[in-house]
């Protein structure tokens, strides 16, 4: 009993405190690739710390939804993080739900975020919400189909079972349907975390922003919670990619060997983050109406992956 509680606490700590590090790492790497010095890797931690101590401005027109959104977003993202195996193949809350729960917990958070953007009645918030919903309406089926491909070969939608199954079969990730599903999920990762061909996380130009437009009215601790959830969502999706497709070094239970797994997990995440940053620096942002084309590619790739699983 205490062991399970400890595992839960450890996973909460990993999800909460590793996520700003990944964000900071990709920002610094991006700055270096653009020949800038950039802020330090730890900057997101300082940002969150500073924002949490500040006061808030809440628009007069805002209803209770505006205040509820940051909490709902934070809690749903954290819960999704607890359903995914990070360093141990056994995720602490895996008994309570599989990959469907993860996808829909994230969708619930996104739903509230879009409502929060609409709630204040400012035009930018509504614009951001509608754009976010347009993109996620295509990204979500692609994500589901890609994950189902993996779940089919493992025989379960429970992510812990999937990770353990793929631990057992070495070289399985070389199978073509895995390759197609990975490519699809990579595009979905870029779209869902708002990276450059789709959305620019550093922009403050109203015409182009998606995520930033929705959270334009938030400030202080609420903004800190939202930024932190965005970092956690990125960690959750990246973990889904690295641990489902490349499950090297996942430990079975929680023991001393887990420390080694933690190091390996960190390395895998950093590699994936570096790949995303490379895509980000070598591409220009797409026009908004071109984004569905990119996501259509992801959708077709994952549908092909799923179909080729059946036709084997």
């Amino acid at each position, binding site marked *: 009993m205490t062991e399970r509680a400890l595992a839960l606490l450890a996973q909460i700590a990993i999800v909460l405190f590793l996520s700003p590090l990944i964000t900071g790492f990709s920002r610094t790497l991006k700055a270096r690739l653009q020949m800038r010095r950039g802020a330090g890797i730890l900057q997101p931690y300082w940002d969150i710390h500073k924002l949490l101590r500040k006061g808030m401005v809440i628009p007069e027109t805002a209803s209770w939804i505006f205040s509820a959104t940051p909490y709902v977003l934070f809690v749903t993202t954290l819960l999704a993080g607890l359903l995914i195996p990070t360093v141990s193949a056994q995720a602490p809350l895996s008994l309570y739900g599989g990959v469907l729960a993860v996808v829909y917990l994230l969708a619930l958070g996104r739903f509230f975020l879009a409502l929060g953007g609409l709630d204040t009645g400012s035009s930018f918030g509504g614009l951001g919400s509608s754009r976010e919903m347009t993109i996620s309406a295509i990204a979500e089926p692609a994500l589901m189909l890609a994950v189902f491909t993996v779940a089919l070969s493992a025989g379960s939608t429970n992510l812990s079972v999937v990770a353990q199954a793929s631990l057992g079969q070495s*070289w399985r990730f*070389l*199978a*073509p*349907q895995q*390759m*197609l599903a990975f*490519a699809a999920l990579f595009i979905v990762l870029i779209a869902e975390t708002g990276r450059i061909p789709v959305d620019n996380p550093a922009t403050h130009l109203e015409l182009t922003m998606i995520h930033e437009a929705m959270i334009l009215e938030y400030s202080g601790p609420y903004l800190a919670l939202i930024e932190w959830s965005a970092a956690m969502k990125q960690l959750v999706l990246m973990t889904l990619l690295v641990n489902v497709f490349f499950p090297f070094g996942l430990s079975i239970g929680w023991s001393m060997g887990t420390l080694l797994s933690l190091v390996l997990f960190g390395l895998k995440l950093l590699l994936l983050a570096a790949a995303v940053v490379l895509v980000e620096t070598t591409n220009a942002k797409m026009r908004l109406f071109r984004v*569905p*084309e*990119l996501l*259509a*590619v992801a959708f*077709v*790739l994952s*549908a*092909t992956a799923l*179909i*080729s699983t059946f*036709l*084997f």
Partner: protein
Amino acid sequence: MFFWQDPQFGNKMITLMAALVLVIQILMVSQRWLVTNIRAFGVQSLLLACIAWTIAYFNHAPHIYWVAALTLIFKAGLLPVVLERLVARIEIRQEIEPFVNVPLSVLVAGMLTLLAYVVSESFHRPNEPAGHGLGHNTLAVAIAVFLIGFFMMVNRRKALSQVLGLLCLENGLLLAAISLTYGMPLIVEVGIFFDVLVASLLLAILVYRIRETFDSMDVSRLSRLRG
């Protein structure tokens, strides 16, 4: 024995690279920029050369090494450079304008892949001894690349992007040939090879002429008479 000498590993690498060829083909359908399309074709040919090399290595078929080398030199090296120069010289607009819009084209490409899998199913013999025949997976990819190449030719207006479609189609043919039969006799391969090479070089010149005469590469304008 090292793990890379294991035929199982070879088979897996071949299927993996074939899947990558398919991914690149779908990306080419979705990509609007002509130059990116040409480079994607170069990468696809490089992968094809790797597949040919792997098949040659694991099946002790020395003449396939020649296929691999020819593919590497001409299709991954020479043709992309020639085509890119042509694009730079005739200063065309860089975007491809397909008849069917891009999301729908990608969906069509997905359907064609599905069709390819269904067709290649009939070539599948599950009780064939392992290591003999590369399985219908590579064949399915080959047919898919062939069909999508054909679709690209039909779907695009510009002569140059139709040439690209033809080249992709030929890539699919080559993949089907080496994955089904471990290569035709070398002389046939070389024949097909130079046929395509000469055809694409001729087409490149033709494209230049079309552009000179009509001020456009849109082949639908060719139906108009000109004195």
